[in-house]
């Protein structure tokens, strides 16, 4: 790399460098950094929404707000517990399903070497670009009690639930189906975050299930594109070599393709995880946490505590707990995925990975 060395240009560069980045620094500082600091303050204060949060009358209350939502034993704790339960089920179902589906779509589209590939990519990706509000409105219609989904289910003889109005957890519903109405005492008597274990195990309500389907519908396209890019970067030689080995399609996919997609897989899982804990727009537009608080999420609860119940401190505390959860999960995932040993078969492959991934893209349609 060559450099322009004249001192004058150097000084000019320094000035220009700061000048060029100044708008970004100011705006991000003002609307990202300062807010975080302010909210951190609010989360430790008893500010209740009138006057300045920094006024002399506002007192520091230590961890009181954090305690109220995690160990307070009152409504605040229960609401937080329910929100955590709902979102945990949401994440547990959405992340694997959206990852699997998007990978599946990518593999299918990647194989479709003939015409139509562009069409399918477009079709699968389109839901990702539309606004969450518009999709939620559509979903409310499709999943209304006499809506399209239930109509289609009725064609195959299934009486669909009243999706957005049914607070029953799907696990509970299934258990009820086999005659189990009440949980064992061990589960009903013990609780975490003021929510009994029996309730933790209720599964997502039908309302939440509709949102889960919606999340999968809207994100699989984006992730499909990521996997598609990853697949196209794969060395064809590896595939070839595996074919020579006589490996079946499934084996080849599992032992050759998938390990090479690990970086993409990591990206998809991380993005999915981060997205899954930020469920807000759908809830605000669609259910406001109902029915039976089964679509309450920490993100919406944080908003609701502050802007509706005027418990600003608790709202900010929930936001920070949420932040920590997201960071912790991401780190955890990074750790799990990074330390997994590479499969034996892979190591026997003739070429090393770096040279493979540097290969030109294979047959794009």
């Amino acid at each position, binding site marked *: 790399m060559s450099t322009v060395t004249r001192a004058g240009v150097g000084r000019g560069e320094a000035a220009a460098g700061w000048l060029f980045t100044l708008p970004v620094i100011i705006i991000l500082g003002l609307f990202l950094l300062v807010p975080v600091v302010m909210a951190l303050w609010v989360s430790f204060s008893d500010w209740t929404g009138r006057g300045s949060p920094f*006024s002399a009358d506002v007192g520091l209350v230590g961890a009181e707000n954090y305690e109220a939502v995690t160990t307070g034993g009152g409504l605040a704790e229960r609401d937080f517990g329910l929100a955590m339960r709902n979102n945990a089920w949401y994440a547990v179902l959405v992340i694997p399903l959206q990852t699997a589906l998007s990978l599946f779509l990518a593999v299918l589209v990647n194989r479709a070497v003939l015409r139509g590939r562009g069409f399918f990519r477009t079709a699968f990706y389109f839901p990702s670009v539309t606004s969450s509000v518009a999709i939620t409105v559509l979903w409310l219609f499709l999943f209304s009690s006499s809506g399209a989904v239930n109509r289609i289910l009725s064609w195959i003889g299934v009486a669909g639930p009243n999706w957005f109005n049914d607070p029953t957890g799907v696990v509970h519903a299934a258990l009820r189906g086999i005659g189990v109405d009440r949980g064992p005492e061990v589960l009903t008597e013990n609780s975490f975050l003021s929510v009994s274990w029996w309730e933790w195990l209720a599964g997502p309500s039908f309302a939440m299930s509709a949102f889960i389907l919606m999340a999968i519908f809207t994100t699989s396209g984006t992730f499909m594109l990521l996997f598609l890019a990853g697949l196209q970067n794969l060395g064809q030689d590896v595939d070839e070599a595996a074919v020579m080995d006589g490996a079946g399609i499934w084996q080849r996919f599992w032992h050759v393709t998938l390990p090479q997609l690990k970086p993409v897989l990591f990206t998809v899982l991380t993005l999915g995880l981060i997205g899954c804990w930020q469920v807000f727009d759908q809830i605000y537009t669609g259910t406001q946490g109902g029915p039976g*608080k089964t679509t309450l999420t920490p993100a919406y609860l944080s908003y609701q505590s502050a802007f509706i119940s005027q418990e600003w401190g608790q709202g900010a505390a929930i936001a920070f707990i949420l932040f920590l959860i997201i960071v912790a999960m991401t780190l955890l995932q990074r750790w799990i995925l990074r330390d997994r040993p590479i499969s034996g078969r892979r190591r026997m492959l003739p070429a090393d990975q770096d040279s493979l991934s540097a290969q030109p893209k294979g047959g794009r349609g």
Partner: protein
Amino acid sequence: MRQPQTAPRFPTARRTRCALRGGVILGATALALTACGSGFDDGPAAGDDAGDFTSGADPLTVLIGSSGDSETAAVEDAVAAWSEESGLEASVQIANDLTQQLSQGFASGDPADLFYLSTDAIAGYAANGSLQPYGDHLENRDDFYPSLVENFTVEDQFHCAPKDFSTLALIINDTLWSDAGLTDDDVPATWEELAGVAEQLTTEDQVGLTFSPEYQRLGVFMAQAGGALVEDGAAVADSAENVEALEYVQEQLDAGSFAFSSDIGAGWGGEAFGTEDAAMVIEGNWITGALANDFPDLDYTVAELPGGPAGPGTLQFTNCWGMAADSPNQEAALDLVEHLTSTEQQLEFSERFGPMPSVESAAAQWSEENPELTAFLDGAEYAQFPPHQAGAADVIADLNSQLEDLDSADAESLLDSVQANLEPITE
């Protein structure tokens, strides 16, 4: 899903809780911010001395949660009439989400001057100084029903004028009623009779009785059983009477003659009633406006709710015209409130969208003009108010979330949890 914003929007629980803060801004970051002009202006101090009203030429903003076009138009007309008379500009804003917009308005220091305020929100806003109490300065102060005034009295201060009130009654679809072979004499007076006619009215296409799964409807059964959530300031949610009430409802839900409106695909009871998915509904005055609007051909009768083990019982709801402590023109706002709560104006509101006037001087004329609706007014004699302690809205919201699952819940433990939630806020 949210209920349509019927006039007494407060039945669908909303929440509030706050305490007053104001003063000087501290902290380096904040100092930097104030350089650009702070939005956290500490407005006029909330009225310790209620005589201190601001005045000026600022136009007034009135924020309402409207039940629909008829209510919006009626309020707009009334405000416009006042505007013309007083020469002051005033505009009506329709809230998408009244509670959120109020909270955000108060926090930003720039709230609407006047707004609908529910009984369960007042304590919270009063505590943090968002409200300007003005009740005792009203010219027509003594005309308001004392029970309504009590709902808007916080720490012995009458804060705001009740704008109107409503009670719950039993609305019956005349056609379906006579189709089932029922006559006027069959209007139920007891729980047994109610269960009986509901069963008779239940067919493949319709349920006998519907209501939304919330305390603001089911509470009538608690009242009829002799229960309540809060009595004389003490939490009594776990009483045997309340258990009896919920178990009665559970029984009928089980039998299929009662159904929650949400379970039959409707946003609220009025909708299920209008589409004839239900032959009877427990609703308030606002249903008349909604039915006239959406289902003008429906014939119906308004009857008092049946009595339970402890006699008759219903719930009543009211909203007041809240005034912001931060309003720059409170004198004019007070004048506007007097105009909006005057006897003639309230009668007109009543005619256009259904609620009952909050002043005694309008009662006689109202009954005369609405002979078919007198059941609503009769109910007021024994009606209960929902609890209005600070934090009650959250408790009721939680109760409602549990009521949605009533058919599979245990009434006793459900009420125990309500009791546990109520105790901290009633102490």
